[in-house]
């Protein structure tokens, strides 16, 4: 998994590329923690290039969501593929990890 992070005026974007599984989960957790420590608690995880996710990847996103909310921010998903969406639905985590069509729309409502 490759990971890129960009920061913007009102949110930060974390983009995992490839498979988000146990081997990559610690890196995304660490990247999210670093963003929050630096004051970026509104985080979009751009899943456009994430071809696969399993429970380790989901756990890292849940950890990031909790940390962002503790810092009075939020963590939202964007551009999930049908495959990733089907895993979110199977696990009922689509109720807590909200997916938006694009990165720009993730925080456009507030």
């Amino acid at each position, binding site marked *: 998994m490759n990971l890129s992070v960009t920061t913007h005026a009102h949110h930060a974007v974390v983009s995992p590329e490839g498979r988000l599984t*146990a081997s990559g989960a610690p890196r995304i957790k660490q990247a999210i923690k670093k963003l929050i420590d630096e004051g970026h608690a509104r985080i979009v995880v751009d899943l456009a290039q994430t071809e*696969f996710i399993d429970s*380790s990847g989901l756990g890292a996103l*849940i950890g990031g*969501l909790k940390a962002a909310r503790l810092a009075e921010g939020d963590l939202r998903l964007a551009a999930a593929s049908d495959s990733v969406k089907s*895993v979110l639905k199977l696990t*009922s985590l689509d109720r807590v990890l909200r997916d938006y069509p694009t990165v720009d729309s993730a925080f456009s409502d507030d």
Partner: protein
Amino acid sequence: MTENPTKIALKGTAELEFVDEVLTALEGLFASVGDIAEEDRTFFSLAVSEIATNICTHHNMDRPVAVSAELTVTATALRAQFHDDADPADPAVIDLEGATLPEDLAESGRGLAIAKMALDHLSHEVADGHVWTLMKKRRQPR
């Protein structure tokens, strides 16, 4: 004429790199066979990832654990079998029957429950190590 392979076997050490190797091999197998529904590919890959990760992260052996995987596609099903040489009592308890999804905000503990939900058959036996058998019936093309 060489037929597309419908079976792949891998051997390695029970470390996370092995999970990635298995997922890459599975992708190659799916590409080689060609006509497998996306949902079948996704859910079977998910279950394979969960079980392989469980094998590679839940042993407490002070020696390397050898693990082998056999991935098979037939006309009606996707199958995988994993065999490791960890001691029968390590991990001490694998509660497949009782595996359920934890509360929504839990950060771990979903693996076995997800694998069960994604498959039509999942079993674990202790026999000279551990043997995991996974099967997902293929959706019929519409």
